[in-house]
């Protein structure tokens, strides 16, 4: 990191233990099926599994061959089959086909299904319907916390977002509650709890219930982590929809970071093979990774710049530095040259898609000027058939910042979108509307205080009773008013010097302070929601913001500066960077717990009905 932590910053708890626990639990489960066995692994579980175990560990526990659970049937000759899967209906059908084919062939084998992180009744129902309930034994591998970095825990559940925020399915709330319970058991109780959002509230309540049932478990322990903050993704879609310009974010947007590591293709490695690189904020010796990148806005022009964090070099200087001074440090040398390759490749891609104009449009949307110009930019984007996901993202950003599109624009953009990318996206638009990501202003819809009060009354009071035509979870975003209240668009006189960041806006080149991070900052400052009533109301969360502080004062001052932030529905690298910055400024340290690391493309894909 560019700036060292303050000397009084608290130490982070050691989360590597979570990996060991998960690994040992898996080993135990494998041993429940003694003897040689073939293991079928769901694709989505492979990367997380890779981070806690390896083939030799599996082999030691008599796993013979490994297969991927996929659409085509696998030919395994083993007498025992073990399936390691997410609790999904299609996996159950896959297993059922396999077992039923065996039955037809008169073959008997032993089958075991290990659900991770937990089993769902709907899955068992399918097993029962397919007539194989009892033929397979079921187990759960409660592996729901994967440390991706020293301060980042991921549940690796990207489907959480769609399941909850689109379908309104609360199946993962128990998983979240269990994860919190595990953390509080291992690292002591959390004396101060805050949260905002319906899902946050429900997760919190269920977690409390778990704690109460296991009374006494955490009582009397000294807390290691002083605060916990739960936040629903739909409190702040805007931040997640913006193009990222911090280094990790850019890499994620460009190459897709998967489970904390990224595959750099030949264009980056400048050889003929791809390399997998693990991305950490700090290397093993606590040294910061050196790269970061910035947008500078000079006279309306935006420029992508990369610089080395500690040394303030540009790419050319960096290259020299790497070839001259780092010769001896082979590892560091290779890592840096790879990252430089990545930067160059990002630069190339970004200049090709006239990134300048894109960023300019985004900033205009955030600030709320030149709406017509931005709309026609988006239109052209669509007409030229530039990436469907990008176009969708921009439309959503326009919709949320403007409290919905005016009907004329909505119709015309939608029509052109369907013409450019396929009529079946009709379904995508319906999803986006339900999730509140892309809406149409009702006729005569303007933002008066009275009106939003009324709409708030309707949504809050009648929650769960009124039959909305779409039973929408969507709410008005009121972004503009919130932005004003929380001062999200910093006033910059002259140029924002990105080498000396002033505030969290640095993650968006000084143009915008992430809303989610600002909320967290404000609440932590006040130690409550007091004085934020207006913001809470604008967020449509009058009854969904909570504070819970324990009276007993056992928490050390050090623990009170350790804050666990729980993002329900995913968080972005930009948000992580912003809060890390805040931590350095205030002497806090943040720990991130997210259902998955996300970005704008993942959010849009989750809403898309047509799989690419």
């Amino acid at each position, binding site marked *: 990191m560019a700036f060292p932590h303050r000397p009084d910053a608290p130490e982070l708890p050691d989360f590597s233990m979570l990996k060991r626990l998960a690994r040992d639990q898996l080993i135990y489960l494998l041993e429940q099926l003694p003897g040689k066995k073939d293991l079928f692994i769901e694709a989505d579980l492979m990367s997380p599994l890779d981070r806690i175990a390896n083939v030799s560990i599996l082999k030691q526990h008599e796993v013979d061959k490994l297969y991927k659970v996929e659409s085509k049937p696998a030919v395994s000759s083993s007498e025992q089959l073990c399936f390691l899967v997410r609790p999904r209906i299609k996996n159950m059908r896959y297993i059922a086909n396999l077992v039923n084919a065996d039955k037809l062939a008169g073959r008997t084998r032993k089958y075991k299904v290990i659900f991770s992180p937990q089993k769902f009744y*709907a899955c068992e129902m399918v097993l029962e319907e397919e007539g194989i309930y009892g033929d397979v034994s079921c187990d759960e591998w409660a592996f729901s916390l994967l440390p991706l970095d020293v301060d980042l825990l991921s549940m690796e559940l990207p489907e959480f977002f769609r399941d909850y925020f689109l379908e309104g399915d609360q199946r993962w709330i128990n998983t979240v509650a269990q994860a919190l319970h595990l953390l509080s058991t291992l690292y002591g109780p959390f004396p101060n709890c805050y949260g905002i959002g319906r899902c946050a509230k429900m997760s919190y309540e269920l977690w409390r219930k778990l704690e109460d049932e296991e009374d006494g478990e955490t009582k009397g322990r000294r807390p290691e982590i002083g605060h916990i903050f739960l936040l629903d993704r739909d409190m702040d879609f805007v931040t997640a929809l913006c193009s990222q310009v911090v280094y990790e974010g850019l890499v994620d947007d460009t190459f897709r970071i998967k489970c904390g590591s990224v595959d750099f293709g030949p264009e980056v490695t400048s050889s003929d093979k791809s390399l997998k690189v693990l991305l950490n904020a700090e290397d093993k010796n606590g040294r910061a990774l050196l790269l970061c990148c910035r947008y500078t806005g000079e006279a309306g022009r935006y420029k992508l710049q990369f610089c080395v964090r500690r040394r303030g070099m540009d790419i050319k200087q960096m290259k020299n530095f790497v070839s001259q001074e780092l010769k001896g440090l082979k590892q560091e040398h290779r890592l840096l040259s790879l990252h430089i390759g990545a930067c160059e490749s990002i630069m190339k891609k970004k200049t090709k898609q006239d990134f300048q104009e894109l960023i300019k449009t985004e900033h205009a949307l955030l600030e709320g000027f030149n709406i017509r110009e931005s709309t026609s930019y988006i239109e052209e984007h669509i007409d030229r058939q530039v990436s469907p996901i990008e176009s969708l993202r921009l439309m959503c950003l326009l919709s949320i910042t403007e409290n919905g599109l005016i009907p004329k624009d909505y119709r015309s953009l939608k029509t052109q979108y369907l013409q450019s990318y396929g009529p079946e996206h009709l379904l995508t638009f319906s999803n986006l509307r339900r999730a509140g990501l892309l809406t149409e202003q009702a006729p005569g819809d303007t933002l008066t205080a009275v009106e939003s009060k009324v709409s708030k009354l309707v949504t809050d009071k009648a929650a769960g009773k009124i039959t909305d035509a779409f039973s929408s979870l969507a709410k008005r975003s009121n972004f503009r008013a919130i932005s004003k209240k929380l001062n999200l668009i910093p006033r910059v006189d002259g140029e924002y010097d990105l080498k000396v960041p002033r505030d969290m806006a640095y993650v968006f080149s000084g143009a915008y302070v992430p809303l989610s991070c600002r909320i967290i900052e404000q609440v932590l400052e006040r130690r409550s929601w007091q004085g934020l009533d207006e913001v809470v109301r604008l967020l449509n969360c009058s009854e969904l913001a909570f504070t819970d502080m324990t009276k007993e004062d056992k928490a050390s001052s050090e623990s009170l500066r350790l804050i666990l932030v729980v993002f329900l529905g995913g968080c972005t690298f930009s948000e992580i960077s912003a809060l890390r910055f805040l931590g350095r400024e205030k002497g806090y340290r943040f720990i991130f717990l997210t259902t998955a690391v996300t970005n704008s493309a993942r959010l849009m894909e989750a809403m898309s009905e047509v799989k690419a």
Partner: protein
Amino acid sequence: MNRTKGDEEEYWNSSKFKAFTFDDEDDELSQLKESKRAVNSLRDFVDDDDDDDLERVSWGGEPVGSISWSIKETAGTSVSNHEGREQLKSRNSFSSYAPLPKPTSTYSLSSFFRGRTRPGSFQSLSDALSDTPAKSYAPELGRPKGEYRDYSNDWSPSDTVRRLRKGKVCSLERFRSLQDKLQLLEEAVSMHDGNVITAVLIFLKRTLSKEILFRELEVRQVALRHLIHFLKEIGDQKLLLDLFRFLDRTEELALSHYREHLNIQDPEKRKEFLKTCIGLPFSAEDSAHIQDHYTLLERQIIIEANDRHLEAAGQTEIFRKHPRKASILNMPLVTTLFYSCFYHYTEAEGTFSSPVNLKKTFKIPDKQYVLTALAARAKLRAWHDVDALFTTKNWLGYTKKRAPIGFHRVVEILHKNSAPVQILQEYVNLVEDVDTKLNLATKFKCHDVVIDTCRDLKDRQQLLAYRSKVDKGSAEEEKIDAILHSSQIRWKN
């Protein structure tokens, strides 16, 4: 592993088991705490292997022992997988992962499980762990819950829901009266656990007539959403449509029906299916889209059959020169337009495949049409067509260049299709904004435009700067020099 049933029983019983608490895993977390301590104290002699392994992941691509890699191997041996083989070669031999680099698991927590039957290894470890009592450090990991059935029928709704949340099999059969069922559902909803809500809904769906079920869910939105999602997931389309019909959610009903077309591969069948969607109660706006979808596919089927025939016959030049890369079926409208501008540009409006016909049928806006036609003709390097696209005649017969999309965009598209400088130059000159024009001209090396613009701006400094960028002794340099020496121009700097 070779633990017998008896051993297992003894093992479980030896752990603190509280009767009648239904909380079989009561101790799980307290033991996790202990295992934390155990793990911490183990640190000294357990190799710090985690991070090392990860380092290896980062540098050797996927490490030899990695699971994803190994799965590729399995795939590679069953199907002759080229990629897999490549990787194999680069890693010397298959057996390279067979030797175990570090006997990690001897020290891992799991060894405690085996320790029961292999006292040797357990002993040595427990010696080291002097501060911990001689009891199991193992968390009661994932005990197969199905084995702990409880057939007692006396659970109250809240107890039942609690047991369900813990993943225990629990009979719901005793909830027979509607009131009991609904109470159970409400308990589940108030617990917030979606899995339990769905479990109760599965039961209700089985034991209530659908009219009653729907009626009760209509006033219970949270549960209703779970049922809808559940029906979508298991693919019970019929019941889902019935539900939407009951709820009078006509638009969702229509969309849900329409969604099915994605599962139909055969184009003719898909077309027929789309036809059935046309009359569905979509919003007025969406109805038009559905109609268009049907018409588009209908067209594509005709065009595809025709062109496949033409291509196979080999008589048509355009298909010989530029063989089709993919079928046009199920492509978006704009792609279809591009295709038709590419292969059927000159066709009369009467044919289905002509661009003008497509434009009319689908009311494609001018802007969109020009962009697409430009891209297609530029790709073919048909500069004459490009020219014609922007040329308009006024009533006096003068021609003028106009573009509904802005000439800077035109230039970009032309450049992307590697248009020659003369062509580019012509369009760069048409860009209105001087700054943009200068930028584009510089970017695409349209020297004349840059030089002329600088001259017009009377910007001597910029012209001087540009002089250093052009080749020595080139015509451009001469031109610049001539202008710089001209006495006619009043330079502003």
